[in-house]
């Protein structure tokens, strides 16, 4: 059973999240181990499994970007994370700038940062963050809509476009994290993009 099927939904990216949440609560009431504590062990085990599946499905579907990532994986027929990492790819229009940023990063690593150097890195990070938001908007907006609207035969192209977008997003997030590291702001309060 895939995550869409858990909720009885068609394989589409447009999802009413309020309705998804309502359904999640309803199914949780049915499956959660808390309500099966007094049942025989086999039934408890079934409840545990159903509940774990439900939680995983809700997590994958409630966030529009995680939803795209999951769909790509599902369409490619991989149901574990193995080999699933989209290889990060620099945004083509920013290739030249990326080169500069990497250089600035290497410099920052080698000898400390002066005030001017910091300002440059902060400005770069702000720009890349804006670019990241744009990419995410494109992913959950036009790209998702396009995939939903395409007839099954024409979906491959849409899928490829989404993969490319995810790759650019992954790249931007890594560079933004590197910049944050170089600025020494990763101690407290700042949420790293890595690992998620």
């Amino acid at each position, binding site marked *: 059973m895939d995550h869409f099927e858990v909720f009885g939904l068609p394989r589409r990216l447009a999802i009413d999240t309020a309705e998804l949440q309502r359904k999640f609560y309803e199914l949780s009431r049915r499956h959660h181990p808390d309500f099966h504590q*007094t049942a025989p062990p086999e039934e408890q085990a079934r409840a545990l499994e159903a509940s774990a599946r439900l*939680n995983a499905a809700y997590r994958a579907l409630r966030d529009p970007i995680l939803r795209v990532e999951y769909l790509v994986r599902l369409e490619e027929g991989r149901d574990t994370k193995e080999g699933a990492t989209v290889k990060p790819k620099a945004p083509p229009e920013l290739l030249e700038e990326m080169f500069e940023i990497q250089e600035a990063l290497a410099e920052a690593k080698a000898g400390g940062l002066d005030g001017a150097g910091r300002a440059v890195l902060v400005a770069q990070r702000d720009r890349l963050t804006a670019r990241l938001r744009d990419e995410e908007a494109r992913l959950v907006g036009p790209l998702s809509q396009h995939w939903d609207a395409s007839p099954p035969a024409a979906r491959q192209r849409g899928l490829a476009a989404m993969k490319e977008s995810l790759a650019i997003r992954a790249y931007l997030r890594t560079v933004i994290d590197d910049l944050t590291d170089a600025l020494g702001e990763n101690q407290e309060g700042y949420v790293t993009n890595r690992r998620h």
Partner: protein
Amino acid sequence: MSRIVGIDLGTTNSLVGYVDETTGLPRVIPDAEGRVLLPSVVSFTREGVLVGEAAKRLLVRRPATTIYSVKRLMGRGYEDIKEELCYLPFKVAPCDGIVKIQVEDREVTPPQVSAIVLKSLKERAEQHFGEPIEKAVITVPAYFNDSQRQATKDAGRIAGLDVVRIVNEPTAASLAYGLHRLKEGVIAVYDLGGGTFDISILRVKDGVFEVLATNGNTHLGGDDFDRAIVVWLLDDIRSKHGVYLGRDSEAMQELRLAAEAAKIRLSVDERAALTIPFDGFTYHREIARTELEELIGKLVDSTLGPCRVALADASLGSSDIGEVVLVGGSTRVPLLRRRVRELFGKTPHSQLNPDEVVALGAAVQAHILAGGITSMLLLDVTPLSLGIETLGGIVSALIPRNTTIPTSAREMFTTSVDGQTIVDLHVVQGERELAKDCRSLARFELSGIDPMPAGMPKIEVTFLIDANGILQAQAKELRTGKAAAIEVRPTYGLTEAEVERMVEESFAYAEADVEARLLIETRNEADTVITHVERALRQGGELVSGDERESIRAALEELRRVRAADDREQIREKTTALNRATEHLAEVMMDAALKGALGSKRAAEIMESK
């Protein structure tokens, strides 16, 4: 279904609660003297084990064998805690990954000490209900990792309890609140106890309590505030009296308790006075609330970072938070309330007693599990990402933090050498990229794999985090469909066999019987008075007449003589007599001490605060 009680196993105090069937409301159970808080202190004496108030009274007299704040050691390795060992008067040593505490002639593990506290609560509940209690829900800090949760579960088992659920403290608190006023919306629960800090963001809707994000620090709490004060007092004493008391464990306990009392007082008053008699001098000092705030400011501020991360993880801003609930005794500190208000932009509240609310919530969760409540459902999360170590020591995350539990993840593994029949997996928990910076949970060994060329076997491992936040794992070789044997070696924990042995042993740690306990207490009281009188005679003996000194010495000798015998009545009689004999001396000394910096009208106040 047998009765399930809810237990808050705290760093400083522990409580037990249940839901009253007739009112449907949770209640905490008092002991015979009407006290609901059981100090989480255990004292090992030759006569038997003391727990709670009786043990707390031994903190100063028997620092080496009276264990407190053991929750900070639960599920921890020696490396984790070695920096704070200098503050602990009892001896903690590394032992097979975990730590052991040396008391008298034996060694005990933190779960065994916690089990003694749990057993006392179990007996309290049994007395209350007049029936055996075998099942309990126990709360833990939300940010507790797998090892700390497992250690808590082990403690329950050693105490003879079937721990049907481990619940997170802030979430439990929200259940207690939810039962009173089911207001829908997003709430933040800020929970600062004696040793741990949690922040949880929840959405409450249609009776479902969905935790959106949680964060915290399992090594930050009121104990650290006390420590900051103690360090400051040590400095002050050194500059005023020229002695450093840092290595005198009795003095350190006196200082710690005085610091704690002053801190508590400063939550209400602007100033607090502390007077501590030491060998050779009496230390007196006033502390202003502003001074305290300077000492603990950094610690308070360090709770704000996790709050921001939790908000970000929940994809919320502080303006989305409908209400902020405070839990834990340390949230009485005014500075902390100010900081929390600034961060969330609204006044936090603690309508339910912050000391009791977690136990009340645990009772509610126990009632849900027993089938007594079906309208409420708690959906909690795992606080830390779970991953496995891959090539080069890099962590591959399988279950991200703040995933609703129970949850599972599957991953494929294979062999790297021809004919390999065993695969080792290293499971870690944490947010860092390198396995060595994360918390090592366990090493799994998959064995019995059919010999095949390298890379051929396809082993599917399923990791499951259950509703307690505890990891389970299963493995299957997909080509043959054969279940692979999987053996877990916890990095920081007890093995199944060790727990079994401790369950057996637990009878050896039986609490001293009432008679023995009273004798220990009486003797202890006598020791305290003897020490004080000896000190008083040294310091102020010349303030009274020679006759008076003689009669005090006589009373002292009398008490010393009966102290070793087992006659409790006699010890008490002689203690009272000695006390009476020194009343005048104490007064004279107090007056002498107050002449000078302090006005004599404050004498009564200082006497009181002592």
